[in-house]
């Protein structure tokens, strides 16, 4: 990049843009963080916590026999089967598809379009607010679930595993994967909310594709978000009898891959929203 380009980029009104993005995030979070607006997202995040809290009072004998190794696998299964494939997925469907299409439905999108904000900045602001909302809810849920699962084994075990052993690394990995899931699925569903008046059909197709990922041949697995996310999980889980195995994607490919996908999707969303017109009557 020439020094002229660098100079031009420096001259852009970054301070204003950051303030505008902050304004969008604050407004969106204030609207969406209420239980009344996102009850199903909260339900998805709180349901496993309720279960794990119950388990504090009714521990099973099996986990005592299995020890820390068994609990590690159990959390890995819960994380992959429930959080990644269901909770974060449906949470992103609910939050990101609504970011623009919900405002069209409520006939309030024009208020954003009538402010002195570049529409691309609006996409970025809304997207970040969606990521934050999902990450606060599901990232928090994953972290609490992690401790709730290990707690019945006794505080000493928790201390040994989490604070002196590899536990903290596992926790950071799981929370990090949750963050990447919010970023990846969020970008995909944001785009769908912009392109489709009724995104349920494309969303069902994506759901089906991500759901049958374990049955897909290795080269097709790579065209999915779940493949890269599962590759980053710290504990492998036993595969089922019909699962087609594939090498997990290396960290250096998985993380930049997901971030790259997000960037591409956001650019497309930015181009789309520049052409968007307000015609609520057609909804």
């Amino acid at each position, binding site marked *: 990049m020439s020094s002229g380009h660098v100079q031009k980029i420096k001259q852009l009104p970054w301070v204003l843009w950051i303030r505008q993005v902050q304004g969008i995030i604050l407004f969106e979070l204030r609207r969406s963080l209420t239980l009344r607006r996102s009850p199903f997202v909260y339900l998805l995040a709180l349901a496993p916590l309720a279960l794990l809290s119950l388990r504090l009072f009714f521990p099973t004998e099996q986990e005592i026999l299995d020890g820390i190794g068994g609990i590690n696998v159990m959390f890995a299964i819960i994380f992959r089967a429930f959080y990644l494939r269901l909770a974060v997925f449906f949470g992103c469907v609910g939050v990101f598809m609504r970011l623009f299409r919900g405002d069209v439905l*409520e006939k309030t999108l*024009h208020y954003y379009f*009538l402010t002195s904000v570049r529409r691309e900045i609006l996409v970025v602001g809304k997207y970040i607010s969606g990521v934050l909302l999902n990450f606060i809810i599901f990232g928090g849920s994953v972290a609490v679930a992690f401790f709730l699962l290990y707690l019945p084994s006794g505080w000493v075990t928790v201390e040994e595993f989490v604070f002196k052993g590899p536990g903290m690394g596992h926790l950071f990995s799981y929370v990090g994967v949750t963050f990447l899931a919010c970023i990846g699925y969020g970008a995909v569903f944001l785009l769908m909310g912009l392109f489709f008046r009724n995104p349920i059909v494309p969303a069902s197709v994506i759901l089906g594709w991500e759901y049958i990922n374990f049955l897909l041949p290795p080269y097709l697995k790579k065209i999915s978000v779940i493949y890269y996310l599962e590759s980053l999980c710290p504990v492998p889980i036993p595969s089922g009898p019909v699962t087609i195995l594939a090498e997990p994607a290396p960290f250096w490919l998985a993380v930049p891959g997901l971030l790259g996908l997000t960037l591409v999707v956001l650019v497309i969303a930015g181009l789309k929203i520049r052409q968007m017109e307000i015609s609520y009557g057609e909804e």
Partner: protein
Amino acid sequence: MESREIRFENVSKFDGEVLGINRVSLAIRPGITGLVGPNGSGKTTLMNLMTGLLRPTRGKVSVLGLSPYDPEHLFRNVGYCTQFDAFPRGTTGFHFIQSFLRIHGFTGAEATRLTEEALIRVKLTEAADRKIAAYSKGMRQRIKLAQAIAHNPGILILDEPLNGLDPMARAEVIALFRELSADGKHVIISSHILHEVDMISDQVIMINGGYVVAEGEIQDVRSEMPEHPIQVLIRCSDPGRLASRLFQMDHVVEAKIQADQKGLLIRTRDADQFYLRLNEAILETGQDIEAVAPADEDVHSVYQYLIGSNGGSTS
């Protein structure tokens, strides 16, 4: 040199096969501009094109030299109060205005100050902390107006801004428009209440079936309609004698004596000639004159002539 006009250059907007507006060329100057036309005539389409909420199928729109598709610069100077009667759910009046000011890019303190000022201007300070969902129609109209003026724009576009307001509020809002116009701002108002448009507008744009049928100051528009004789009302002592004298002029086509026998309504094809020779006729017939005034140089009459309905039901 920076343009002071809102310009439409041969602009058409079609939605599929449905016509929004067709081949509109306009230059709107500062002052209060009234936009009138029947339902579905294209008034809202015109306003949405000015603000970039719609894109023209053909032609070009510019607002003070800026493109409507450059919101970052445009909306620092433009406020648009739309007809959509919807608000983000769960927000209070204060929070609604302040949040969008922050999205404009104002700091928290600035946004709060501007919100308070806007709320004072529309007299909604007491209800500011109540949820908008519980507002009356008039209050919702005022909060939208407050949101449109909160960032002190130079151009104010208002789609049916007087809807739902009680007479007191109407008078206050009209005074506010006049105040803004006196500051050299553009105020563009669409309204279906023609006498109010007449009262407040410096110029009018009449639109029908997607076509602009007239634009400019109402007297100029009226004078360009030779097919419709000008009406002049003369309040005088003996309208019968004056009528027979005036009928001697070729261009006078009709004279009606008013029911109270104190007034005469004349229709003439040549207003200039008529006014030149009126004094002569008055002196000859020895009239005491109370008033001489044009009777159809108003929006209502022009609307009737050009669009054909009585104007009472347009929007």
